[in-house]
């Protein structure tokens, strides 16, 4: 039953994503990609749970610590670079100063 509930969430979220993304103008497609990229780094949640639950197993600990590092680079770096890019998009009035 819980699987069906999760599947339902997945399908609804996919449609929502379709609606949201198709409204993003092509000017902002690069920031959009790096943003969605950063967002996909939330897989770090999974890595954190697996890591904390298995500190007694060296192999899992190593793998999950690597996973946390990689996912954090993805999220933190992704958001930072998106912010840097979006900071460059300015209106005409702002540019004149």
């Amino acid at each position: 039953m819980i699987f069906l509930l999760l599947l339902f969430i997945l399908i609804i979220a996919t449609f929502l994503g379709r609606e949201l993304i198709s409204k993003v103008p092509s000017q902002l497609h690069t920031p959009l990609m790096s943003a969605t990229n950063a967002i996909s780094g939330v897989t770090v949640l999974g890595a954190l749970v697996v890591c904390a639950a298995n500190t007694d197993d060296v192999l899992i600990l190593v793998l999950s610590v690597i996973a946390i590092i990689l996912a954090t680079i993805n999220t933190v770096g992704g958001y930072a670079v998106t912010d840097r890019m979006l900071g460059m998009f300015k209106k005409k009035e702002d540019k004149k100063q």
Partner: protein
Amino acid sequence: MINELSLSDLNNLAYILACVCTIIGIKMLGKPTTARRGMLISAAGTVVAVIAVFFDGQVMDSWDAGNVLRNGYFWCFIAILIGSIIGIIWAKKVQMTGMPELVALFNGFGGLASALVAFSSFYALHKIETGYIYDAVNDISTSIAIFIGLITFSGSMLAWGKLSEKITGRAIVFKGQKLINLFLLLVAVAAMVIYVTPSLDGFNLIAVLVLTGIALVFGVAFVLPIGGGDMPVVISLLNSLTGIAVAMAGFIITNTMLIVTGALVGASGVILTLIMCKAMNRSLGNLLFSGFGATDAVSGKDGTGAEPKAIPVEDAYMVLEAAESVVFIPGYGMAVAQAQHAVRELAGKLEENGAEVNYCVHPVAGRMPGHMNVLLAEADIPYEQLRTMEEMNPIMPMQDVAIVIGANDVVNPAAETDEASPIYGMPIIKAHEAKTVFVLKRGKGRGFSGIENELFTKQNTLMIYGDAKATIASLANEFTAE
């Protein structure tokens, strides 16, 4: 009332809040004015989710005050700290021309992280021989997360190598490539079936290892035949695959936040992929398997035999001086020549001279979707002047001068007139309809795809040969000298 809320309910409430933040963030990305704030909200959502996970039952159980090395919090914090530092340094260091590489690299990391989560949870479940309850959903999502996550990883790493020119950016095709790919895929499916089938659980570890190997090879095999100009499609597609891997990881650990964000990212990647395909007038299948960039494609008609007319910078200046409307059409060549700041300077001079200046960007210009816009924004060009092909084409005949910088196929009229041309049917920027066209080009050679460009021999087209940056700079100098 509050007593009835368990910690796990609060946790889920935090995930809902985080999801809402992410959705609002993407919604606000729809406008340049709100985009930056939107991303802050989205990032705040991610922070909320990470804080919430530290109050997750499994994570709290790992608290061990006596032994630091057994304490889950210790490892989690260390890993987050290392990742954050590396991430921030890379994000600050990267040049805007290098954005596609960075996105590919980050994307690969995301994919690998999801695969590692799946593998770890598989290993954790299966090392306990007894007490393991067969769960088809878990098995299916684990195998998909490992497979897709690792394809994303190796594919993104190869894309990163191609984009940063560590390896050749050209498409690599060889005989039997499709057959090999098909074979790999079949073996992968077989391994998945073995893994999911309960009576074959004894072979689970072997199946997972086979799946791992195949996925890594397949990721490489699928990016190899795709050439430089088609990279925007690959990047979008890999982005979408990461989303799927994240959603699968969400099924494994039963986390709604991962499922929602994975679906959003997956949808985003698919939409961008389709936009790119449409802008090239090619189907996804054709793009992925034809190795477009590798073939020395030759147009049906080999031009009209007419020679392009070249003019010196001084003459071009005379035309620009009299122009009332100018549109720049930049391609990846502009980024390679690092000419965007010089373009901005020339545009400033033109505006002082009373001309209206616009920039028209083709959807597939650059090495990832929207790449050109970021480069122009970096050079302080206001986003109101960044026009899409659809906005600009109808008013193109009213433009006095169109300046094509380092773009080729996207302004080739053969796409509209020559049915034999490999790019026939691709939507183009109709630069040839402007009253005068300047084409800035390094030399007389063909463009990236090797297709003859009819635009160069048109009556109203004038070629200015030489380094684009130097040409633009000397045009701007002519204005100052006046």
